[in-house]
């Protein structure tokens, strides 16, 4: 069924358009005055560097590495995130954990862990694929730098950004 939109029959007063113009002027003037003197909180913009947007839960910001509450870095260097990363932003150099270490039974940890934030597309596939729940996309957005090297996040930087993530299972302690 075609939808027939009825054309309104305008009176000659409406056809002048002047009343409609007048109403339009009042609308814009109301917004202008309100922004200038009254409810400034109704404005739709933030003064960005000073004010920041409150992010919703599940926001996909920069990927970070986390430690558990015991301070163990959770990444076991399985390299699944490196393989799944669509823009190949992640590079991992694995390392064996020495036998005298507290977490020796975990066997592997990353010697170096780099994420090139100039390549990262914030797709969250690394977080999804991680079997150890070691990599998370956090709230950091607006990453800026003055050189390429600055935006190549290394392990220390990633752990610092990630901080501690409470782990309810601590599976390596039970094995």
């Amino acid at each position, binding site marked *: 069924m075609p939808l027939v939109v009825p054309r309104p029959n305008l009176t000659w007063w409406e056809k002048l358009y002047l009343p409609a*113009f007048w109403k*339009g*002027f009042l*609308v*814009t*003037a109301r*917004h*202008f005055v309100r*922004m*200038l003197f009254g409810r400034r909180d*109704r*404005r*739709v*913009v933030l*003064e960005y560097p000073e004010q920041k947007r409150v992010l919703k839960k599940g926001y996909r910001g920069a990927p970070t590495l986390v430690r558990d509450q015991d301070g163990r870095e959770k990444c076991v260097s399985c390299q699944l995130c490196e393989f799944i990363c669509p823009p190949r932003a992640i590079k991992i150099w694995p390392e064996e954990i020495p036998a005298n270490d507290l977490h020796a039974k975990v066997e592997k940890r990353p010697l170096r862990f780099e994420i090139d934030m100039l390549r990262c597309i914030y797709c969250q596939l690394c977080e999804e694929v991680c079997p150890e729940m070691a990599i998370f996309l956090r709230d950091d957005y607006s990453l800026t730098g003055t050189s390429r090297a600055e935006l190549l996040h290394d392990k220390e930087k990633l752990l610092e950004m990630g901080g501690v993530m409470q782990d309810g299972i601590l599976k390596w302690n039970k094995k």
Partner: protein
Amino acid sequence: MSPVFSNLLAQPGVALAAEAAVKIAVVIVVLMGMVAYTVLAERRICALIQDRLGPNRVGAFGLLQPIADSFKLLLKENVLPGHVNRFWYVLAPTIAMAPPLLTLAVIPFGNTLAGFNLVIADLDVGVLWIFSIASLGVYGIVLAGWASNSKYPFLGGMRSAAQLISYEVPMGLSVVSVFLLVGSLKLSNVVAYQAGTWLIFKAPLAFLIFLVSAFAETNRLPFDLPEAEQELVGGYNTEYGQMKFALFFLAEYANMIVASALIVTLFFGGWQVPFVRVEAFGPILAGALGVAAFFVKLLAFIVFFIWVRWTLPRFRYDQLMRLGWRVLLPLALLNIVATALALALKLRA
């Protein structure tokens, strides 16, 4: 002052030329400053109307933004697209910029100050001069559209030609009734005539027609069809960049200011201060008050231009033509006849 210089100034022609040169310099500087800050005002006002903030970072309240912008435009690389007709392409922005500067010459922005007439050239044919020069403004846009050798600028240029020709006619006719009342084309006479009541109260219909046509002549919304960024990318200035684009941009705002000045002069008493007899304050203060009154009225109209732009949507092309030829033109003719009849009856009585 050295005697040679003062002797030189004593020559009547030289003194006149020096006076004119000083006036021209002052008017150009003031106009350019106003253009820059009108752009800022437009950006801040439109932001507030749309519940935004607008540029507020450069200097207090963003007051240095126009200076930063002009530096940016001046320092940009000069790019010439390969497909343009170079001579006309470069010439078009300057042609667009010239008419508003030339028309400003005849607009009186004050009575007298320290013995000087506050108008650069008080021509006997003031308004004819304005119409003849203002109609040249279309060449800048048409040439830009043609020389760009690209489809959207071309469409913009063609629209501009049709639009400006269509609205020149009602604009000119609407002013006829004003001159029937005043009896002179000289703008200083028009202002002097409005010492008692402003002409808007004697010729409101002429004012309305002139206002609508002025919006069309300056390519401002709701009649910005030559530019129409949503449908024509950028219209006639699509292929322009850097200072050449800036000239078009400045020309648009200069046109707006000149149109406001003309409306103020023709219908709102020019430099006449309402309700107050300024002569009582002595000649210097009276002159200054006149200039101040002119600028207050001018600024009010500039704000009105901006307000209209952010309120009304653009006309469709056929609506634009219908409004020009089938509404404004008959109304203007009717207005002339009515004014002439009223004047004739008044003379009989």
